[in-house]
């Protein structure tokens, strides 16, 4: 190896180090390490005054290091699994309503002249830029006089309101790329509008639907503010349980365990959607 090559490679390594080390170290410290501590915390006991028993140093008398207790509580009482199931149900319903509402908008934008598309997209994103709590509050004002506050309906409608753009954007990105001549061909072959949509447009848009569904489904699962502010006691979701464990009862190991379970569910959904997206692609 010549000297020039050697110095170039060393220079390359040095550059790589210079640009990647600072963000890497920052995220290692403030993303990965906290995540790992949460994993450990889910196998531990709460501290004397709530929170978490010290990770290092002497443990208080009578206390052991690690425990499966938090997970045992979760699996021994159906109540917790039930809240997870309810959260999955609310997330599924929200995703479905988002899909039904997003489709006409995405389709309209995709079939509009190129010039007006950016403006129509911006119009979808704009309300999304207002503060999350402001958007919830807006529904408080509207639903209050209608006597619909603190109901499941209020929870779902504001969930949809907050997450709708996440469905519109990927769907539009997909629909925009469809070749319009396919629809002409379908028409020439005698397909009516109904069949043209269900046999051509819809199957081809499945990848966009899956991207949007994941973007809506996952944040809904962890939401606590909407059920807390607009829902009744019945409407508590996983996010509310986690929040309550950390700030209410201050049982951090239990809260960590719930967070771990939520993480597992989220990862499962991501894996599932990737498998589905592959099938959707083959279908298309």
């Amino acid at each position, binding site marked *: 190896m010549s000297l020039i090559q050697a110095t170039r490679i060393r*220079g390359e390594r040095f550059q790589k180090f210079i*640009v*990647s080390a*600072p*963000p*890497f170290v*920052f*995220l290692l410290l*403030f*993303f*990965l390490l*906290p995540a790992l*501590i*949460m994993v450990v915390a889910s196998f531990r006991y709460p501290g004397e005054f709530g*929170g978490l028993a010290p*990770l290092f140093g002497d443990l208080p008398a009578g206390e052991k290091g690690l425990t499966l207790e938090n997970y045992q509580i979760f699996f021994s009482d159906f109540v917790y699994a039930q809240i997870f199931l309810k959260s999955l149900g609310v997330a599924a319903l929200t995703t479905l309503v988002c899909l039904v509402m997003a489709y*006409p908008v995405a389709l*309209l934008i995709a*079939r*509009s002249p190129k010039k007006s598309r950016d403006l129509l*997209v*911006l119009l979808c*994103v*704009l309300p999304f*830029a*207002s*503060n999350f*709590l*402001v958007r919830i*509050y*807006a529904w408080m*004002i509207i639903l*209050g*006089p209608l006597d619909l506050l603190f109901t499941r309906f209020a929870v779902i409608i504001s969930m949809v*309101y907050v997450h*709708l753009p996440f469905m519109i954007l990927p769907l539009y*990105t*997909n629909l925009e*790329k*469809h*070749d*319009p001549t396919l629809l002409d061909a379908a028409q020439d072959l005698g397909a009516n*509008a109904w069949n043209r949509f269900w046999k051509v447009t819809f199957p081809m848009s499945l*990848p966009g639907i899956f*991207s949007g569904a994941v973007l809506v489904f*996952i*944040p809904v*699962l*962890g939401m*606590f503010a909407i059920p807390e502010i607009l829902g009744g006691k019945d409407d508590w979701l996983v996010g509310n349980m*986690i*929040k309550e464990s950390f700030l209410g009862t201050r049982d951090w190991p239990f*809260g960590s365990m719930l*967070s771990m379970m*939520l*993480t597992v569910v989220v990862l499962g959904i991501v894996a599932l959607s990737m498998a589905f*997206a592959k099938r*959707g*692609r083959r279908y*298309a």
Partner: protein
Amino acid sequence: MRRSPLLWISAALVYAFLYIPLIVVVIFSFNNSKLNAEWVGFTFDWYRVLFNNEGMLIAARNSLFIAAMATLLATVLGTMAGIAIHRFRLRFLPFMTITPLAMPEILLGVSLLIFFISAFGENALSLLTVIIAHTTFCIGFVAIIVRARLTGMDESVFEAARDLGATPWQSFRLITLPLIKPAMIAGALISFTLSIDDFVITFFTAGAGVPTLPLTIYTMIKIAVTPEVNALSTLMMLLTLILIIVATKVAPDLFRSKRLVKDDDAESNAQIN
């Protein structure tokens, strides 16, 4: 193209659904009544009340300071991450920049809460912990935007610079930096907006001593709905609106949704066509 009246009407209804609630908030912020029920008369009173509210001004100052610091940190670190991911084959950095954006926010919030308290003690939560928490999720957005910009660029300019004898630093300062500047500005504006609007992660990392605007709205709407909240909401909408307009002027590509969606989807669509 095929746009049936049915499509027009249903899309128009959805657009109405998106805007009516926010318009209601704005209208009631000028309503001369303590109740958000019917229109009584026009007034600026709620804005006056707001500006005389000491707590609100402190919250606004905190929010602006946090957003400014988090934006600064996230723009520098996120740009580095974007360049690093684009230029080098890295295993962990792409994962570590994107994952905080993909998980439910509450998970990042509570894990940082445990981390700060167990590492720095019971009174650790402060302005600094909020700034760190916001930086953690803003880095990913800056990195994605910067990387998208780099991906669209012609590699030969860098080779040309090298062939003409530029040192790596010169080629960065004179070529890369001017080219990615719009992406950095767009990333910074997005970070600022996200930070100033963030509620969930701030909620877990701010503790009691650091009120921010979203935390103040949360407390207010949990206790009672007053027209003051309408006024505050309207002002916050105005602020984000201004930021968005600036962002679209600086980087017109930003809201073409292509940039927001993974390459994965583009690939699948390529297969369709």
